[in-house]
């Protein structure tokens, strides 16, 4: 909490701050900027009537306000819209007060002027309240706090919030990290084209007749490793094409997807 003292200047207490405004007189000093909106201006005008706010004549007040606004217009001053809205409303109120209608459901001129008077008295009460508040015994002005507050002696108890799960997660993260460092990918067992070439060369050396290519696959072809089996088929076929290309071998097939036959080209 900030240690601040509120202060209220004497001039801030002045509610009748615009003594120099003379309504309807030749000397007319306009300083709307000093008012916080039309209600503020109205309150100021009401206080000029120098009677209890309860007794203020709303009709007189409306006239004074409208004079004020008209004067401002004559001086070609730009008036904020809210001042004009209030002027229009007061003109309406005035007509209601002067020519009462018996229209049910609409507020009477008396109701409206009471509402306005209530609003003025309420705002005035709050302005007085500000003054009253500052007439109290204020802290750091009339009453003082201890000059040298003693340092709070605080005993801190540290309660460890670590739970077993934290410990285990920490441990397993170490284990996982270690595992990563020893990781070596396992390659699938495959037969290379080079191996198939060596195999075919050996098997073909003394072969002069057409024979089915499947006869040249290794003996234990059908192992459990399907990928390995397929790699043998693929590499054997690739090696065959390689040997045909180099002229060492002849290859024939009678029909599409039919059996392949090979023979030595010597």
């Amino acid at each position, binding site marked *: 909490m900030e240690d601040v003292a*509120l202060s209220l200047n004497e001039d801030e207490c002045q509610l009748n701050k615009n003594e120099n405004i003379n309504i309807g007189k030749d000397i007319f000093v306009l300083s709307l900027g000093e008012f916080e909106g039309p209600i503020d201006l109205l309150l100021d005008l009401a206080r000029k009537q120098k009677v209890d706010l309860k007794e203020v004549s709303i009709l007189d007040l409306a006239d004074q306000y409208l004079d004020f606004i008209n004067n401002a217009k004559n001086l070609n001053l730009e008036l904020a819209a809210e001042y004009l809205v209030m002027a229009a409303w007061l003109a309406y109120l005035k007509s209601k007060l002067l020519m009462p209608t018996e229209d049910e459901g609409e507020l009477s001129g008396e109701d409206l002027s009471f509402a306005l008077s209530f*609003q003025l008295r309420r705002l005035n009460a709050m302005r007085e309240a500000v003054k009253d508040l500052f007439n109290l015994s204020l802290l750091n002005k009339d009453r003082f*706090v201890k000059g040298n507050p003693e340092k709070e002696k605080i005993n801190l108890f540290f309660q460890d919030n670590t739970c077993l799960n934290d410990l285990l997660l920490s441990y397993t993260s170490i284990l996982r990290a270690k595992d990563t460092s020893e990781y070596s990918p396992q390659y699938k067992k495959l037969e290379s084209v080079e191996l198939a070439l060596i195999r075919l060369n050996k098997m073909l050396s003394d072969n002069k007749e057409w024979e089915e290519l499947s006869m040249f696959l290794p003996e234990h072809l059908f192992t459990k490793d399907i990928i390995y089996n397929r790699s043998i088929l693929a590499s054997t076929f690739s090696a065959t094409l390689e040997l045909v290309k180099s002229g060492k071998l002849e290859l024939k097939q009678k029909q599409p997807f039919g059996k392949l036959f090979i023979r030595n080209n010597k």
Partner: protein
Amino acid sequence: MKKNGSIRSEVLFSIKVIEAILFSSLHPVSAKVIKSKLPEDANFEELIDIIKNKYLNSGFNLYKVSDAWAFRTSPEVVNFLTVEKIVKKKLSKAALEILAIIAYYQPITRAEIEDIRGVSVGQNSIENLFESSWVEPKGHKRVPGKPSTWRTTKHFLDHFGLESIKDLPNFYELKSSGLLSRNIEPSLIKKSSLSD
């Protein structure tokens, strides 16, 4: 509490404890904190009364601020004190008016403050009061848009030497005159015109 006309020693000791706690603290100390330092069977209200009376004619007095207590120098001797200057933070006239309105009408929404003042309340006005610990939000009003409502803080009471909001100047007079009502409804207009 008294035995053969003499205050028992436990009571005397409890009084000492309370005095020391209040004496050493800058801010008002809540009843809850004080009670936590006293024996279970201590009669807190009676102890506070004894201390209040004891310092009635001292250079510093016991003040109640909401549900907390604090020693503050007596306003009687203020002219004899040369206290290290405390930074005075001036609030604008508008801010002071808003502070007073919040104090008297709390809890109150920004829109209601605008109704009373007849002008819009700048975005920062209430926030500034909040940052200086004069006001604090107090939930939302159950109307469309659920606007925040505001109330004054314990610091506000402490600053103006008030025990509670009911001790605000003319609080009861304003209340009974109907001026503390927020809305000017036709029904209210007629009723309060009668109450004058």
